Every structure is written in structure tokens, then in C-alpha cells.
């Protein structure tokens, strides 16, 4: 389906990643946003608050992040595409409701503009310390999708993608921005509506009788209906059967939760996206995401100038993690270098997938700034060297 032209103001803009995210959401058809202000994400809802009244959208500033993160789920069941927006401390408060969205298979989008943590930390400065939290922050097992834009343009593009994936898989999708990308101003091209591909909600169109809100097809994703459609749906946060009724047994749990995980796991080939550059034949491969994928480039270029074959794999989807691709590469590469603005999060996945076949080196940074490319360069060179002897 193509985007609704209402709201898509095609053109080239000079805007920051936060504003671009707001435009992406609008283009994706989002018409409900609930939020609670927090630096460095607030510009997103500020733009939404300005844009929505005239395009039939509903923005509400809730009393806190807990309320925001469930108001959007109410709105989804009311028929809207919906999003909430926050940053570290607020993201922590949303954890219970990420689990709720996963459990009730409520398609929605959470944006986390990462800043320096833990706790209040460095509110106005960058970090990438919420990556593991994005995957594991709610109790119990569940599956989510998380995307990592590295520019305002990608902030726009991947926000659209987030909405599309949410609808495709009836799953919460997280857009993991960081303060740099959120506050960086660059050219953003908003294409005309008819060039924007949108995944509509997968509403049930079969007979009303016998409809089951939690009965999945072969792709493990059940169809949706909305409140007011006359289905008398029941949606519960308890373990439930295909009708949505609570069933307090291990068997029901296995059936339901296994599917919630499998719908991401088994569809991961379709979901996973990375950008690769000169990975074929590379000696060293940088694995990066978000702003760090740009900071790494001067380091990579310099190392290449000095003769090291450096490839670059950039995670567009951090979750699901491109395990298969990393595994493949690990057979050819002599070292992975993983720069992150944290003390080692996604690198753990790289280590797991590499399974000892080759070296994995971290370039950690606590946050408050981006890396000095020299540190990444130095790490590349140190790997290269060891291999070359």
C-alpha cells in the first residue's frame, strides 16, 4: 500500500533526526502519539504536536512514560497506528508495556533516543547503552524488532520501516536512535506519498464466525481486528489461547510464548537488514550501528589507506541480530572490531555467533561523546598486525 498523501509533505528538508523521525511516523500512517517529554527525544513529540491537529492525528502528553506506553496500545486496538517516544529513564519505565505489547501482539512503535546512562546520567549527551535493554528489558521471554538509524534520513526511513514491521509481525518495534543522530541536522528527502511503501494493518477479512484473534497462519502472525468491529474480542496480558482467553497451564504457555518468539526467530531472514561494504575478502570487519557506524568510517578509510583490508557491516536491525551473516563471515575474517558507545553490548552477540572461530575486539566508550576515530583505527591496526605476523 502507498502512504496516505495527507501528512506527507514531499520535499528536501534540512532537519534533525528527531524531526525526521516524526515525519517518518506521519508518513507511515501513524496518527496517535502519546509521550512524556525527555531529552533528547522531546523534539519528536514537539513536531508531532504541531503537525497532528491539521492531519487528523491525536497527540497526547500523558502523565508519565508508563501511561504513554500503554495509551498507544489502547489506540492501536482503537484502530490507529501508534507510537511513543522516550529516552533512557523513560525507556526503563516502559519495559512492562513492551512486554504487554509483545504478549498481546499489539503492533506499535517505541522510539528510544539514547543518551548517556545509567540513571539520569548525561541527559543531553549521546550513548548507546540501551541496546541489550531493548532486547531483554521486560520480564519473561518475548521477541521484538529493533532498528538503528545513523542519520536523519535514516531516522525518517527506518521509522517508516518500524511501522511496517510492526504491522507485518504484530509486534512492538523499537527505533533505537541516539542523541547524535537525534540532534544532528542534515538533508532529509521526504518522497511523495505514492513512493512510500506502507504495510497496512493485516485486518481479518474472513467470516466473522469462528474468527480467532490469536490464531496464527503459517507465518505465525495472527490477523487483527479492532474494537467496535463487532467481534467481542478479548485481549489479555495473561497467557491465553487462540480466543484470547486466559489459560493457566504450561501447555498454553509453550504454545503461545514459543510462537511469540518464533515469529521473530523464524522470520528473521526476512526481517534482518544490514549494510555491508567491502566485507568480501576482508581481513578485519567492523560491526557497528547508529552514529558509531559513521564515526568508524574515517578509521576504516585510514586503515585501508595503509593496506588493511577492512570491511564494514552495519546493523540496521540490531534485533533480530544478523547471526547467520556474522557466522558466515567468521569463517573468512580474521578479526571483528565492534565499536559501541557502551561497555560492550552488541559485541556479545558477535562473540556468540563467531563462536571462537576468529577474534572479536571491542572498542568501548562510556558515552557523553562519540569515539575518537583514532581509537577505532588503532584497534583495527592492532588486529591487522597480529594477523599479519
Amino acid at each position: 500500500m502507498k502512504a496516505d498523501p495527507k501528512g506527507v509533505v514531499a520535499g528536501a528538508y534540512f532537519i534533525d533526526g528527531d524531526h525526521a523521525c516524526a515525519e517518518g511516523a506521519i508518513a507511515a500512517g501513524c496518527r496517535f502519539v502519546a509521550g512524556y517529554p525527555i531529552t533528547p527525544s522531546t523534539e519528536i513529540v514537539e513536531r508531532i504536536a504541531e503537525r497532528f491537529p491539521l492531519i487528523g492525528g491525536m497527540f497526547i502528553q500523558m502523565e508519565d512514560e508508563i501511561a504513554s506506553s500503554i495509551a498507544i496500545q489502547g489506540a492501536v486496538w482503537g484502530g490507529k497506528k501508534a507510537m511513543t517516544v522516550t529516552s533512557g529513564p523513560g525507556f526503563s519505565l516502559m519495559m512492562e508495556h513492551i512486554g504487554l505489547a509483545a504478549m498481546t501482539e499489539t503492533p506499535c512503535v517505541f522510539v528510544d533516543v539514547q543518551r548517556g546512562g545509567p540513571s539520569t546520567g548525561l541527559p543531553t549527551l549521546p550513548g548507546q547503552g540501551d541496546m541489550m535493554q531493548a532486547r531483554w528489558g521486560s520480564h519473561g521471554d518475548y521477541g521484538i524488532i529493533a532498528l538503528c538509524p545513523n542519520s536523519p534520513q535514516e531516522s525518517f526511513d527506518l521509522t517508516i520501516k518500524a511501522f511496517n514491521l510492526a504491522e507485518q509481525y504484530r509486534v512492538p518495534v523499537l527505533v533505537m536512535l541516539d542523541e547524535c543522530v537525534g540532534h544532528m541536522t542534515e538533508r532529509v528527502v521526504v518522497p511523495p506519498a505514492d513512493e512510500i511503501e506502507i504495510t497496512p494493518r493485516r485486518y481479518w477479512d474472513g467470516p466473522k464466525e469462528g474468527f480467532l484473534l490469536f490464531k496464527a497462519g503459517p507465518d505465525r502472525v495472527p490477523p487483527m481486528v479492532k474494537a467496535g468491529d463487532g467481534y467481542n474480542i478479548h485481549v489479555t496480558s495473561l497467557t491465553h489461547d487462540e480466543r484470547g482467553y486466559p489459560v493457566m497451564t504450561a501447555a498454553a504457555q509453550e504454545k503461545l510464548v514459543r510462537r511469540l518468539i518464533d515469529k521473530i526467530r523464524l522470520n528473521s531472514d526476512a526481517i534482518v537488514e544490514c549494510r555491508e561494504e567491502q566485507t568480501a575478502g576482508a581481513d578485519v570487519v567492523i560491526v557497528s550501528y547508529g552514529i558509531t557506524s559513521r564515526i568508524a568510517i574515517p578509521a576504516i578509510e585510514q586503515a585501508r589507506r595503509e593496506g588493511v583490508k577492512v570491511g564494514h557491516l552495519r546493523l540496521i536491525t540490531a534485533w533480530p541480530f544478523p547471526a547467520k551473516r556474522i557466522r558466515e563471515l567468521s569463517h573468512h575474517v580474521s578479526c571483528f572490531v565492534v565499536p559501541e558507545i557502551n561497555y560492550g553490548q552488541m559485541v556479545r552477540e558477535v562473540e556468540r555467533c563467531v563462536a571462537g572461530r576468529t577474534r572479536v575486539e571491542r572498542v568501548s566508550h562510556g558515552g557523553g561523546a562519540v569515539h575518537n576515530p583514532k581509537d577505532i583505527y588503532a584497534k583495527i591496526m592492532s588486529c591487522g598486525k597480529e594477523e599479519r605476523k
Partner: protein
Amino acid sequence: MARTEIKIGGFGGQGVILSGYIIGRAAAIYDSKHATMIQAFGPEARGSACSAQIVVSAEPIAYPYITTPQIMIVMSQEAYTKFSPELAEGGILITEEELVKTHNLRKDLKHFSIPATRFAEELGRKMVLNIVMMGFMTSVTGIVGVEAMRQAVKVSVPKGTEHLNLNAFNKGFEYGEKLKSGAA
């Protein structure tokens, strides 16, 4: 054109961020270059020295921060003291004549000074000082096309003030041209 790093410094309320925004917009939207602007945020940044960083380049910009700006536009004494040491060897320094006394000026720099406050006051609005500076910068650096800059000024300033701001821009630009031709 290679990567050029520009820093603008001043105090809050002088339109420092808007200036950076205009340069970036001119380059990225009206001049088919690439541009990245970054500003300092946060309570610690409030009230005191304020700055914007812009990278302009013909190629896509990977690293978005500036490290050693080639061009620096300075509108307050504090900013001069704080930022001018960062300027690249042989870089261009543009200061406002009244607001900045360039003592201990580095010998390696190309220094331009402009009475932008006076020009702005002549135009009837002290506020447009930053736009005067932009016109001047456009002339003396040539980093972005003058038409692109005019376009960017027009669409970036508050509605109803376009004319005033374009005048301010032109004033600065002409002063730069004169200066270059040795007439000022």
C-alpha cells in the same frame, strides 16, 4: 570541494544556531552539497556561550563533528577566547568589530572583521546582526553559493522579516566584496 568545517560562536539570543542552520540548509538544499549541523544542548549550555558546528562537503559526510574548523565566525568576546585556538592552521576567522577585540590574534589566520552590529542597527533591527555576518561570510569564504544562501535566509527567518533579513545579508555580502576588492 573537500570537507570544510565551520564553527559559529556567540551568546544565546544572537541567532548563532539559526546562522548555522542557514549555512547548512543553503549547502544541503540549495547548493547540492552535503552538510551536517550539530549544536550544543542542555542546561549547562543555557545562557552562556553558544555554538554551532557545520560540516560542508561535496561528498557524503561520515564523521559529523568538527575537530579543526577551517572557518570560524565569532560574535562574542567569550567565544573568541574559547574557540579561536581551535581554528585550523591558516583558517579564516570572521569577527564582529564591536563585540570582539582580537587581542593575541594568531598570526597564521586570515582574519576578517565587520561592523555587523552597526550595519544591523542601520537597518533598524539589531537582531539581524547574525544575518549580516552570514552575508559577509558568504562573500569572504565562498563556501556556499550566494544564491543558495539568499534562498536559505529567505525560508529560514520568521515570516514577514524576509525583506529585512535579505537586506542584512546583502549588506554583509557587499561589505565582504568591497573588502576583497580592497575598497573597504
